[in-house]
């Protein structure tokens, strides 16, 4: 068959392209959007599931900010059992892998969810350790290296074969610490970054919107996380945060990402998947690079041909 230039492996998961729908921005893949070319998509991450159903937060859940947006959806979801009954088997897009995103307030909850999913034959789980909207008073799991380690390890211990992705918050003093903890706990893949904690003010209605910042505004923050973590870990990284063009995607790859999480950029540009796909193909051709995996980290490792010294 020859080389498939955009194919990537994340743990035991083979994706035909490195382009992944990030969690929370594509529901469960059940909405049919005929402007999306699924042939160019590697995987869909589901909205984060919790054990019990969650109603989510009141309005407003969305606030636009300069080159970005704040969301405080509050993990609205039907709970894992309803998800398995009604949603899991309807996610069935030919050639597109499904990653089930899960989250729990304690290790027990996360274990129970994993148990149920593993029994259903789910083979890729993303552990959302960083949702900033729920339990506002408490810290997020991925704000502590110890908690990060224990949560990841708990899931890993249940099943050694699933591809386990740990998704981390950027709201930490040093993200390489939580990244190393997740790796040590047995994560196969890291996803960097989740939204950045933020507040907006609705001057007109005199209210405050607390939530997570996403979009182009946070790209420099996501890039930095990948840049720093790539130097320290051995496992692959999904780069997420502010990707709205093919060039953004390439920037993440050159700094160390093996795959790309497409988040709110999809709302802005419905053809984003195509755009990234063609940009990456063109980049490989132009630079005579055989596979996108060969481009990962090129700039970080200063191995990029023609890279300027400083």
């Amino acid at each position, binding site marked *: 068959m020859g080389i498939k230039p955009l194919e990537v492996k994340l743990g035991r998961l083979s994706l035909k392209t490195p382009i992944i729908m990030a969690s*929370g*921005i*594509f*529901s469960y893949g059940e*909405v*049919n*959007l*005929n*402007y999306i070319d699924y042939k160019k998509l590697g995987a869909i991450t589901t*909205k984060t599931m919790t054990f019990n159903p969650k*109603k*989510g937060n009141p*309005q*407003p*859940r*969305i*606030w*636009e*900010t300069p*080159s*970005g*947006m704040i*969301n405080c*959806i509050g993990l*609205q979801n039907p709970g894992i059992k309803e998800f398995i009954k009604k949603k899991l088997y309807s996610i069935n897009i030919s050639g597109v892998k499904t990653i089930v995103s899960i989250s729990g307030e304690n290790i027990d909850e996360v274990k129970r969810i994993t148990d149920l999913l593993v029994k259903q034959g789910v083979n890729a789980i993303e552990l959302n350790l960083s949702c900033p909207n729920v339990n506002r008073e408490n810290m997020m799991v991925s704000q502590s290296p110890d908690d990060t380690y224990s949560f990841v390890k708990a899931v890993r211990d249940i099943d050694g074969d699933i591809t386990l992705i740990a998704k981390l918050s950027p709201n930490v003093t040093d993200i390489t610490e939580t990244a190393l903890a997740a790796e040590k706990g047995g994560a196969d893949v890291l996803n960097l970054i989740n939204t950045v904690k933020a507040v907006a003010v609705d001057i007109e209605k005199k209210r405050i919107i607390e939530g997570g910042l996403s*979009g*182009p505004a946070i790209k420099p923050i996501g890039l930095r996380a990948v840049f720093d973590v790539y130097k320290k870990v051995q496992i692959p990284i999904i780069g997420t945060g502010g990707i709205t063009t093919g060039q953004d995607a390439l920037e993440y790859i050159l700094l160390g990402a093996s795959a790309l999480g497409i988040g*709110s950029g*999809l*709302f*802005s*540009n*419905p*053809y984003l998947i195509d755009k990234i796909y063609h940009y990456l193909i063109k980049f490989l051709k132009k630079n005579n690079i055989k596979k996108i995996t060969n481009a990962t980290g090129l700039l970080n490792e200063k191995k990029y041909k023609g890279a300027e010294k400083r």
Partner: protein
Amino acid sequence: MEAKRFKIRRNIWLTEKLYLLELEGSFNQTPIPGQFVHIKIEPFFLRRPFSIAGYKDNYLKILYRIAGRATDILAQKKEDELLGLIGPSGNGFPVNKKWENVYLAAGGTGIAPLLFLAETLKKKNCNITFFYGARTSDCIAFNILPYGVNYVFSTDDGSYGYKGLVGDILKRYIMENGVPDVIYSGGPYEMLRKIAEISKKYNLSAFVSLENRMACGVGICYGCVTKIKCKDGWEYKRVCKDGPVFNTEEVLWE
């Protein structure tokens, strides 16, 4: 759901802060009244939703008010510029052959989807009474109102038609003229709530078009939800996908 570029044919000022945007282009799936389009207005990150105010082959009409930053920029757009649209989105107004005597109740730009609906209902020879409320007479764009319809105007300051709120006028009208088969409504939340109260009181079918801030506009982000009654109380449903049109009975009014 399609994502397409439409070309601006005309973008004209009507009255006060109200504009009419006429676009050239078409969707494969013919839009129905109550559906909306999600428009990209540079340089804003998020799209902006607007009801479809009219649709024919290769022609789409939007009625909009300058409400803030993006609509301000939209008003400056010129003929022949291209706009990226996602649509037609949402469920649209349900219609029923049996409903012959129809009341439309519009407040402000909430009139937009009702203009499209009126055209459709006229073809079905419905008997339409159109309640249209605005702040003052200056805010009413007379030249966009369809013919062959019975109008009941009202303004907050009484400068045109009745003085008072659409809901109150409608209620009085019902008391004097009897109930319709159905009420369709679009406008501010408080007004829609009033319509819901009236429909409940008279046990009428009534449908309202809700508005909420949106991110995706196609049902995948759960940003635009509103409380809808269900067997165990209420749940958050998506205005963009499960709506924007809801039966007034379903909505948990706040």
